[in-house]
């Protein structure tokens, strides 16, 4: 049984001109972490709030663990949905101690059992000695873990996390997200995780759902999203791709950087765009230059070069430290990818023939 099922969910805010969430359908399996990712204002947070019951959709239905929680005629309020939520600002209750915060969701349980569970949760997040403190006495990372412990303590069928790491420093963020993923997996929790950071989404999500302008662009495993982007937007958003124009011919695609021998399922002479990442492109200093080195960036393990092609299009390329080519050098760029590159026609990925 699916832990979560969204069917044709739409939501428009009265004050807004555009639709916040437009006909989104999603499913989530038990024990899975789904990362909702997209630029700000894309509808991912609204989708999360719709699942939690903090907003009510205009149309569509949501099932949690097979239970209908909302459709046209029915609405289950958030307190009856059995979901746990971690908020962007953590929303720890400042008038309660850490212990009381975590215990807050355990009402209705016998006191002794609630205390035991709370203690167990604090121990799981490594804060068993912080129970008597108040939220303002904690560091950002500690607050983050309390918020998670509080959301997990009632053993919710679904954990919802809204940009939970955005208030943390970059260093801490890497450390905390590793801990959080570990805890979620240890609890075998089913979770929906919202972020605008593609790298974080790739790290946290068992699967990813990419949003843009209220649309769900693509759902899939991290590898699929990264290497087999379904739309030009996904390719652009997930991985710093450059887009090189090309024309479909019967033996491949003709581009400025030569013929790419991939056969496509669309008519000849159609215009397409080829998504190229820096590791798909290389260059050398031959007699027939077709590009100019504009800039060179140090990227640790290698250099990244920005090249301007004769047509004016920009591409990027990685090179090792062995060679240093100064900006202003004329070079010959070529496609070095050994795998199939992703090709888009009218913004959508084109299948190979």
């Amino acid at each position: 049984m699916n832990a979560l099922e969204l069917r044709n969910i739409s939501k428009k805010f009265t004050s807004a001109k555009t639709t916040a969430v437009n006909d989104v359908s999603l499913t989530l399996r038990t024990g899975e972490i789904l990362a909702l990712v997209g630029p700000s204002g894309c509808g991912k947070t609204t989708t999360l709030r719709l699942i939690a019951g903090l907003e009510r959709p205009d149309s569509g239905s949501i099932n949690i663990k097979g239970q209908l929680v909302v459709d046209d005629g029915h609405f289950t309020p958030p307190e009856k949905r059995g979901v746990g939520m971690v908020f962007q600002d953590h929303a720890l209750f400042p008038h309660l101690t850490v212990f009381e915060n975590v215990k807050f969701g355990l009402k209705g349980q016998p006191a002794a059992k609630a205390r035991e569970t709370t203690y167990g949760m604090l121990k799981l997040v490594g804060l068993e000695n912080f129970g008597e403190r108040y939220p303002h006495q904690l560091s950002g990372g500690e607050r983050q873990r309390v918020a998670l412990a509080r959301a997990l303590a009632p053993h919710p069928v679904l954990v919802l996390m809204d940009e939970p790491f955005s208030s943390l420093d970059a260093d801490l963020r890497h450390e905390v997200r590793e801990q959080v993923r570990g805890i979620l997996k240890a609890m075998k929790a089913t979770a929906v995780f919202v972020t605008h950071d593609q790298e974080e989404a790739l790290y946290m999500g068992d699967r990813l759902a990419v949003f843009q302008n209220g649309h769900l662009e693509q759902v899939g495993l991290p590898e699929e999203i990264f290497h087999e982007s379904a739309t030009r937007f996904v390719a652009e958003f997930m991985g710093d791709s450059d887009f090189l124009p090309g024309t479909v011919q019967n033996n491949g695609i003709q581009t400025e950087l030569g013929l790419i021998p991939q056969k496509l399922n669309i008519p000849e002479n159609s215009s397409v765009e080829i998504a190229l990442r820096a590791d798909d492109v290389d260059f050398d200093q031959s007699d027939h230059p077709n590009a100019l080195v504009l800039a060179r960036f140090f990227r640790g393990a290698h250099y990244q070069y920005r090249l301007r092609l004769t047509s004016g299009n920009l591409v990027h390329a990685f090179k090792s430290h062995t060679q240093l080519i100064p900006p202003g050098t004329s070079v010959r760029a070529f496609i070095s990818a050994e795998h199939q590159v992703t090709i888009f026609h009218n913004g959508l990925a084109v299948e190979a023939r």
Partner: protein
Amino acid sequence: MQRWKNFLQIPKRINISPRLLLAAGLVALFVAIPLVYIFFRAFTGGADVWIRLLQTRILKLLANTLLLTAAVTCGATFVGVSMAFLTERTNLPGRHLFRWMLALPLAIPAYIGGIVHLTLLRPRGGVIPQLLENWFGQPVPTPSPLGFWGAAFILTLFTYPYVYLLSGAAFRSLNASLEEAARTFGRNNWRTIWEVTLPALRPGLTAGALLVALDILSEYGTVALLRYETFSSAIFVQLSGRYDRSAASILSGILITIAIIILWGELRLQGQARYTQMDSQWRPASLLPLNRWKIPALLLVLLVVSASLLVPVFVLGYWSLTALLDPETLSSIMRSGSQTFGDYIWHSLWSSALAALIAVVLSLPVALLSVRYPSKLSKAISRFTQIGYAIPGVVVALSLVLLVNQFLPFLYATPLIVVMAYVLRHMPQAIRASESALNQLSPSMEEASRTLGRTSLQTIFQVILPLILPGLMAGASLVFLTSLKELPATLLLRPAGFDTLAVRVWIWAAEGFYIQAAPAALLLVLASALPLYFLLRREQIFK
């Protein structure tokens, strides 16, 4: 009709709680009914009464009222801003102490201040003219506290703290970078103040000025004491002079209209106002050196502080001592009927405290609705319940007398009707306090509570209320403070044997027995100073 339907219809997708809407609606109804009733009485008042009023009074009263309101508003704005400037932006010696002394006159009801100044300054009979006459052997002309200029002067003295507090906070919250930026564009200190600082103060300033304007519009005791007739005092005269309520209703209707116009203006200005935020980058703007102006500035502040705080408190203290040391006076002030002085204190405290409690409780659904479910409807309800701001105590009392006697006779002549008047009149203060407290509370607190299994009602009690309690207490203190001072509604509505401190002050003072009035007045000032202290401590500048 269709438009109304659309307006009232709650869109399905707004997850608004019908119970909350109902509660807020009932509160609005509670506030609105007395008003609507007064309007009804005014316009069914009969043509002959209108004609009589038009022939004799209305225009003159209108002119009197508007003139006084304008004069005091200007005066209070000028005094308030200049005092705020001196204590917040210059190196005035002792400015930390002056801050308190300039705000504390809020605890002194204007009519009590008026009594003191009247005694001191009354031409020929007053203490100062007498002293001068004794020194010089002949009468020396002194400014009179009576009439228009006297009323304007005394009301300015006791209302400027509104402007002082609001513009003082604005002066303080200005970031140094704002003025520094102006300086880099080649403005000197004083031009910077004029061109950058003062315009930036505008929101705080207008808010303060409009508070003053509404206060003067509904002022009764002081103008009656200083014999300057305005709408409010005329309503009171009509109420106590004739056996006919329609003239009073008509005057009230007109007064409410003026007040609503002013309130509307305030809401419009407030809607656009944006106060400067004190974020982590905030640095206080630097203090301007006064140099050779130091002594004149100090004298000016001392003059204001003396006239509005030190002299009244000293005189009240002196009179109180005189009263307490004279057995005859003491015995006469200790009793009225079978009531004693302790009863007056108790009546004042419990009626004001109950009013504060009720006002805060009633403000909650309105504030929750307008802050958490912003929509045209919820805004309208919130605005509507704030109408009490604009309505003088006399009018509230009149509407309650008429309404309660007709529909709830068992409530009439109980202390509860006095409490009801306080609530109606001071509800806006509670609503504003509750709204601002809720605005500072992140909605995610409530959402977290909901996702942790609490219903919306449980969330209110377990999360929202504990967190906004300090804000609610501020609102309650404000309602308590203003109810304690309230005079005209109490005078008209009090049942026999339910005199408050304010009423006792008035009963004695209206007959010229100032020494007898002093102990109650002093207690009233002290009792008001306590919640005021609490309120001021919440403000940035008094920490």
